[in-house]
């Protein structure tokens, strides 16, 4: 069996150019990691939101929330004051232009800060309602967006699809079936070796691409507080409140492993009954999408 496994690997590397496939997919993964920008859709100024999140220290106990509420009240008073100046100037021509312009400027500033602060308070209230004293993460939205895109591990799926097709269909594509079937080893043992390789490569590839994605998250978005509750991240909003981010990521990792293994296994089963590669690819895609739909 050892010899068979060695040859199956050699075939993948020499005949199917596995090294190039690994290199190409890794390159794509790295490029995506480096070049992708978060797509964020919020009604408040994100930079101000982060500035405020950092200023108030992440974990929002009652006294901090009180401080935020006071700040909002202060903003409300100031807004009223500036609004008076603006209305007076615009409606009745009262006051001087410099005063009016200055009021307009501050009014805009206050509105920006106020909406960011309200978003922060809303988030804090939400987190507290789910799990008390969960910190608000400065890069919550970027991280969530990152997870939404990268946790899908698209490159890993493409890699798994390609190598499984190359592995399971290689002898029928090359026409070597007619030589291998009547050999002593026989088709059964060769198939078994292919299954072992497929499962091992699948686990390795999924882990590698997942790890790469995680490393990018850590380095780009200061993703370092792994023991805080998972619900602190927008992405894990619906997850059980007792899980930490590390645990949630671990569960996702295991599930993605299972998903890749299931998809690769189906390609293997399909190859047993059909030589249609497109059918195998479609099956792989369907299983992947269904499993993403579940989690």
């Amino acid at each position, binding site marked *: 069996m050892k*010899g*068979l496994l060695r*040859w199956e690997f*050699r*075939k993948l590397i*020499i*005949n199917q150019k596995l090294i190039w496939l690994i290199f190409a997919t890794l390159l794509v993964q790295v490029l995506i990691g480096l070049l992708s920008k978060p797509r964020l859709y919020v009604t408040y100024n994100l930079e101000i939101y982060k500035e405020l999140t950092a200023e108030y220290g992440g974990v929002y106990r009652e006294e901090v929330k009180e401080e935020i509420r006071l700040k909002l009240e202060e903003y409300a008073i100031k807004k009223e004051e500036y609004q008076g100046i603006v209305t007076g100037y615009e409606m009745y021509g009262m006051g001087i232009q410099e005063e009016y312009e200055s009021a307009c400027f501050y009014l805009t500033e206050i509105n920006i800060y106020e909406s960011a602060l309200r978003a922060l308070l809303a988030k804090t209230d939400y987190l507290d309602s789910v799990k008390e004293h969960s910190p608000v993460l400065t890069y919550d939205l970027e991280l969530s967006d990152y997870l939404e895109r990268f946790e899908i591990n698209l490159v890993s799926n493409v890699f798994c699809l390609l190598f499984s097709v190359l592995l399971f269909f290689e002898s029928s594509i*090359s*026409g*070597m079936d*007619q*030589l*291998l*079937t*009547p*050999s*002593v*080893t*026989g088709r059964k043992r*060769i198939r078994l070796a292919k299954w072992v390789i497929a499962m091992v490569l699948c686990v390795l590839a999924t882990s590698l691409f997942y790890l790469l994605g995680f490393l990018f998250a850590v380095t780009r978005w200061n993703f370092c507080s792994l023991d805080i509750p998972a619900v602190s991240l927008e992405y894990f909003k619906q997850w059980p409140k007792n899980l930490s981010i590390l645990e949630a990521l671990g569960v996702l990792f295991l599930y993605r492993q299972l998903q890749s293994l299931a998809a690769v296994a189906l390609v293997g089963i399909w190859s047993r009954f059909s030589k249609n590669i497109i059918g195998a690819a479609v099956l792989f895609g369907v299983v992947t999408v269904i499993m993403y739909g579940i989690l």
Partner: protein
Amino acid sequence: MKLELKNLSKFYGKVRALEGVDLTLDKGIYALLGPNGAGKTTLISMIATLIRPTAGKLLWDGRDIFEMGEEYRSFLGYMPQNISYYKEFSAEMFLQYMCEMKGLKPREGRGRTTELLKLVALEDVAKRKVGSFSGGMKQRLGIAQALINDPKLLILDEPTAGLDPKERIRFRNIIHSLGEDRIIIYCTHIVPDVEHIAGRVLLLRRGKLIKNNEMGELISQMQGLVWELPLKEQVSEERMEELAISNITQHGGKLYMRIISEEQPDEEALAPEPCLEDVYMYFFNESQGEGK
């Protein structure tokens, strides 16, 4: 060492590929002849365990080959028609791979590879990729892989297709040297390839075994059925068709029409020594209603 085919049949849906073949093979070289679609490849695919028969049994020394499984395949050598390779493998690597597939240990496999590359005169190109090989080199590599386990039963399906005359002779010589202590089934429709090496001839037509005779016996049955008539310019097309010419040969600077006929077709017609090609033409000449 005995391979028995008992009432062997194979149907693909309603299409009959092989029907009721009864045959016993002992040591020696067997030429399996028949036109395209006669069922040759179906028959040898079953002997090579690639497909299972719809009915009937295949027995090796009285045991069912499909039940023997690995044991049977351990002494089976098979060279399929239009053999495929891993093109990126070198000849040496390919043979080593096949050694592994045939259950040889790596060290044993390396030794056998060297031996076989020498036998088929490919040792100089052992490190070259198979994808860059000519048709002849690929065929030689094909016979080498079939010989890896020193098979008791060697099946060759159209092994000389696409080879030039020199390579065909070389190939024939290799087969001839192997034929003494094993069963070789040589499936072809290139008749001259087997004329000098096969001991027995099996004729297959429309899925049925119509002849199973010693080569000499079969050829001698053609005595009085083969005629040669000098080719004259004034022979009309109608006459040519009427004569059912199997071949046109040249000797002594003259052209002759070789005719298969139960009666002397012309007073000038001579009776030459029949050959296996005449047997083939007699049984498989489509212009004569698919032969006799």
